C-alpha cells in the first residue's frame, strides 16, 4: 500500500500546515512517510507544493505520479493534473477555484462555505480539507486533534474548532464520495516513530552533542538549523546569536570555541563563501568548529529555495592554504543526526574544522525513522579543564606531541596562557618565520593528524547485490531515491549501489575495498544532483577510477523515483 499526496497552491495559503499535519498524522499512525517541499523564493503568491508519500513499507524518495492532488488554486490543477495516477483524485474547493470540474477524478469539498456556516476563521478551511482527505484515504480522525495541536501551537479552543472543521470535511466526503473513500485502514503497530527533516536532525545532533554556541546569519535553506537551536536555547542553555554577516558568524564561533565550548555555525553556499577565511583561521589556530553548509543551486544567489549538490568541490577545498578537515554528506536525516554528532566529536578530538554538507532537499524533507539509536552517540570532553588544567604547568598551546594533538586548554581557568595566532607560530603560539618551525607545524597540524583522521572515516555503504554488474554511485541526499530506484530495478538486473556519506578524508579501502568492487563491475553509474559530476571527479582524483556513466540533474529539483528509475534503466 502506498499513496502520494501533493498539495499545491500559493505561498501564504497554508500548504505547509496542511502538509505537515497530514504527514505527522500518518507517521503517528505507524506509516512510513516521506515528504518534500517545492517552494518559491517569495512570501505570498507564486506556485508551491508540498508532497507526501506514505506507505506501509520503507520509502525514501518522492514519486512523480500523484494519487491525491489537493489543489488550493486552479493553477495547481493545471500544472499537476498530468501527473495524476490512474485512480487518482483531485481535491479542490470549487468556490475557491471559481470553476467546477466534472471528471470522475474530482472531489469537490466546499471548505470555504463550510467554515462560513460554522462561523469560524477562514483558515479552518484547511482542516475541512484535511478531514476530507483522511476520509478518502480510509483513516479516522482519532488523533487528529493531537497532531494539529503539535503543529499549530494554539489554544485548546482553536484546536477544538479545527477538529470540528475536520469532522465536517470527513463527513462531507463520506456522504458524497462514498465510492471514492476507502475502507477504514487499521493502525499499524505503534512504534515510537520519529518524523524529522534534515535541518532539524542537524540541530538535534548538535544539541545532543553539547553544542553551546551557534552564531549564523539567516540564509535559506540553512536557517532551519538556527531556528531549531533557537527553540532549545533557553531550556538547554545555548547561546544562539544572529551575526551581522557570515564573516562575523564564523569568527564569533571561533571566539566561542576558543573560550571553551562546543560551537557551530551554518549557512548556504553564498554565506559559506564569506566564511572561507575563517575556516582557514580555524585550521591555523587549531580551534574546533563545526560548519553546516546547506546547498542551494548557484552560482551566486541562484535559486534560493531549491536544491542542488553543486558545492561539493567547494567545501572540499575551500579556504586558502593546506589543512586537514572532515566533510560529511549525510543521505538521510538519521545520518545527518549521527554525522553531526561525529562532526563535533572529530572537530574536538583533532581540533579541526568539520563540515556537514546538506542541501535544500535533505534540509526540508521529512522522513519517518525508528527512534535514532542514541547508544551510538559519541561524547567525550577533550578540553583541558578543571583539575587537569590546574595541575598543568607551562602550558604551550601548540606543543609538539606524538600524534600532533595538543590538549586544548580553557583560557582564564588557570595561570596557563592560551595563545593562538593566525600567523605561523611556535609551540607557544607566537609568530615565527623560520623554515624549521614552519615544517614542524605543518607536520603537526597536517601530516600527523591526517592519517588518524582518515582512519575514523567509514567506507561507503553498499546496498544490493554483492558482485554486481552495475553499480550506482552517489553521495549525500541522493541516497534515498537511488536506493529505491535500485530496488525497483534489482529484480531484472545485477545491480548494487554505493553511497558515500563521509567523503573527506576520502575513505580508505582497508575495511571494504570498494575500488575493487567498482573495477570488477561492468559499469559504474554516478548519480549526482549537479551539472558537472563533482563526486565522480573526486572519486577519480582519489582512486583513479572513472565512472562510465554520469547521470546529472541541475534544474534545482531533486531526482524523483519514477524518472530516475527510467533514466538508470536506459543504461542497463
Amino acid at each position, binding site marked *: 500500500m502506498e499513496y502520494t499526496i501533493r498539495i499545491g497552491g500559493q505561498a501564504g495559503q497554508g500548504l505547509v500546515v496542511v502538509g505537515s499535519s497530514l504527514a505527522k498524522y500518518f507517521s*503517528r499512525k505507524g506509516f512510513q512517510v516521506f515528504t518534500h517541499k517545492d517552494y518559491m523564493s517569495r512570501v505570498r503568491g507564486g506556485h508551491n507544493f508540498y508532497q507526501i508519500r506514505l506507505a506501509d513499507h520503507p520509502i525514501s524518495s518522492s514519486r512523480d505520479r500523484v494519487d491525491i492532488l489537493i489543489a488550493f488554486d486552479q493553477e495547481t490543477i493545471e500544472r499537476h493534473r498530468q501527473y495524476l495516477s490512474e485512480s487518482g483524485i483531485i481535491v479542490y474547493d470549487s468556490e475557491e477555484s471559481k470553476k467546477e470540474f466534472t471528471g470522475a477524478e474530482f472531489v469537490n469539498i466546499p471548505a470555504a462555505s463550510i467554515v462560513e456556516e460554522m462561523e469560524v476563521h477562514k483558515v479552518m478551511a484547511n482542516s475541512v480539507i484535511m478531514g476530507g482527505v483522511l476520509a478518502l484515504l480510509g483513516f479516522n480522525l482519532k488523533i487528529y486533534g493531537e497532531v494539529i495541536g503539535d503543529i499549530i501551537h494554539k489554544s485548546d479552543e482553536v484546536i477544538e474548532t479545527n477538529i470540528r472543521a475536520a469532522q465536517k470535511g470527513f463527513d462531507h466526503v463520506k456522504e458524497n464520495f462514498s465510492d471514492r473513500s476507502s475502507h477504514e485502514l487499521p493502525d499499524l503497530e505503534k512504534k*515510537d516513530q*520519529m*518524523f*524529522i527533516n534534515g535541518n*532539524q536532525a542537524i540541530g*538535534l545532533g548538535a*544539541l*545532543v552533542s553539547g553544542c*553551546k*554556541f551557534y552564531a549564523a546569519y539567516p540564509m535559506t535553506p540553512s536557517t532551519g538549523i538556527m531556528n531549531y537551536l533557537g527553540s*532549545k*536555547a*533557553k531550556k*538547554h*542553555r*545555548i*547561546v544562539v*546569536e544572529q*551575526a*551581522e*554577516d557570515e*564573516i*562575523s558568524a564564523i*569568527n*564569533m*564561533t*571561533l*571566539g*566561542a*570555541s*576558543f*573560550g*571553551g*565550548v*562546543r*560551537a557551530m555555525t551554518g549557512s548556504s553556499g553564498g554565506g559559506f563563501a564569506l566564511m572561507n*577565511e*575563517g575556516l582557514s*583561521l580555524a585550521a591555523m*589556530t587549531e580551534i574546533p568548529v563545526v560548519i553546516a553548509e546547506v546547498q542551494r543551486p548557484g552560482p551566486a544567489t541562484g535559486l534560493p529555495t531549491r536544491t542542488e549538490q553543486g558545492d561539493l568541490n567547494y567545501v572540499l577545498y575551500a579556504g586558502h592554504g593546506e589543512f586537514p578537515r572532515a566533510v560529511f554528506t549525510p543521505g538521510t536525516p538519521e545520518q545527518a543526526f549521527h554525522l553531526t554528532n561525529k562532526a563535533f566529536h572529530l572537530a574536538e578530538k583533532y581540533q579541526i574544522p568539520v563540515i556537514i554538507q546538506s542541501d535544500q532537499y535533505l534540509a526540508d524533507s521529512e522522513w519517518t525513522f525508528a527512534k535514532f539509536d*542514541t547508544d551510538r552517540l559519541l*561524547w567525550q*570532553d577533550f578540553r583541558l579543564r578543571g583539575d587537569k588544567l590546574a595541575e598543568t604547568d607551562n602550558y604551550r598551546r601548540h606543543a609538539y606531541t606524538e600524534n600532533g594533538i595538543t590538549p586544548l586548554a*580553557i*583560557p*582564564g*581557568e*588557570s*595561570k596557563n*596562557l*592560551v*595563545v*593562538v*595566532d*593566525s*600567523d605561523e607560530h611556535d609551540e607557544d*603560539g*607566537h*609568530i615565527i618565520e623560520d623554515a624549521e618551525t614552519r615544517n614542524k607545524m605543518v607536520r603537526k597540524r597536517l601530516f600527523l593528524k591526517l592519517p588518524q583522521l582518515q582512519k575514523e572515516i567509514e567506507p561507503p555503504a553498499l546496498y544490493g547485490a554483492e558482485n554486481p554488474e552495475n553499480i550506482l554511485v552517489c553521495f549525500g541526499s541522493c541516497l534515498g531515491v537511488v536506493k529505491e530506484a535500485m530496488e525497483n530495478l534489482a529484480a531484472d538486473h545485477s545491480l548494487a549501489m554505493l553511497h558515500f556519506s563521509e567523503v573527506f578524508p576520502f575513505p580508505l579501502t582497508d575495511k571494504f575495498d570498494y575500488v575493487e568492487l567498482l573495477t570488477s563491475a561492468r559499469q559504474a553509474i554516478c548519480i549526482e544532483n549537479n551539472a558537472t559530476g563533482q563526486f565522480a571527479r573526486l572519486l577519480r582524483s582519489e582512486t583513479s577510477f572513472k565512472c562510465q556513466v554520469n547521470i546529472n540533474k541541475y534544474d534545482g529539483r531533486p531526482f524523483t523515483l519514477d524518472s530516475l528509475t527510467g533514466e538508470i534503466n536506459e543504461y542497463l
Partner: protein
Amino acid sequence: MSTYEDYKGQEPAWCPGCGNFSILKTLKNALVDLDIEPHQFTIVSGIGQGAKLPHYTKCNTFNGLHGRTLPVATGLKLVNSDMLVFAIGGDGDCYGEGGNHLIHAIRRNANVTLFVHNNQIYALTKGQASPTTEKDTVTKTQPFGDLSSQFNPLALAISQNCGFVARAFAGGPELPFLQEIMKEAINHKGFALVDILQNCITFNKVNTFHWYKERVYRLEDDYDPTDRVEAFKRSLEWGDNIPTGIFYRNDRAPFEKSFPIILEEPLMRQRFSMSETLDEMSEFY
C-alpha cells in the same frame, strides 16, 4: 599583585621610535594599576603592526584575522563572561576591513574594550592610505590622492550610542592620560572604544609625533561626557586642535548580561550532560 615585569613578552618587531612602544608600555602600566594578572584577560587582535601587541606582553591571545577582532571578542565574551576581553587593531583593521563589526559591536555592547592603534596609515603593508588618512594624501595605491573623506571613528561610535568613547595620544607627556583612559575603558561595563593616536615614523610623514603633540589638547574638566549631542559636536573637531579624553559614556546594560542563561555561571563552566538532551527526540514522535 602583578608587576610590570609579569607582562614581559616577546621582543617587539617594531621600528625603533614607533608609537606602538608607548601604547604597549602604557597598557602594561594600566594593567599593573588595575592588578589584572596575565591569565585574567585575553587580547583578541587583528593583523597589522599594532595588532602584534599581544605577543609583546603576556596574556591569553587570539591573534586572528585582519579586521575580525570584534566578532571573536564577542564570541569569547559570551561564553566566558568572567574573562576580561580586549580587542586591539590598527585603523585599517578596525575601520577599514572591520568596519561592519565595529557598528554591530557597538550595538551589542558586550563588555569588550577596543584599543585602536590609529596611525592613519596601513603600516604593515607599507604605506597605503587607511580610512583615517588625511584626504588627498598620495601613496602608491592612491595615485590620485586619497579621495575619500577622513573617517571619524568617534562620531560614528557616538552616533550609535556607544557606551564609552575616548581618544588619547600615545606620546610623551600624554601617556599618563592615556593610562587613565585605558583604565576607565577597561573598568567600563560594556563596549568601549579607545582611539589612540600613534605615530608611525616610517610611513606616516604627515601625522608625526610632533604633529600630534602640537595639536592634541584635553577636553575641559567640566566637560560632560553624558551629553550625546555635545559629544558629537566635539568629536567633529580635528585639524589644528584635536581634543582627547572621554568624549561620551553611558550605562547601557552589557550584552552578556542580557542572556539569562549565562547570568549565574559563564557558559564554558556549565557542565553538559547528554542525557538531559535526549528527551528532545520525543518531540519528533
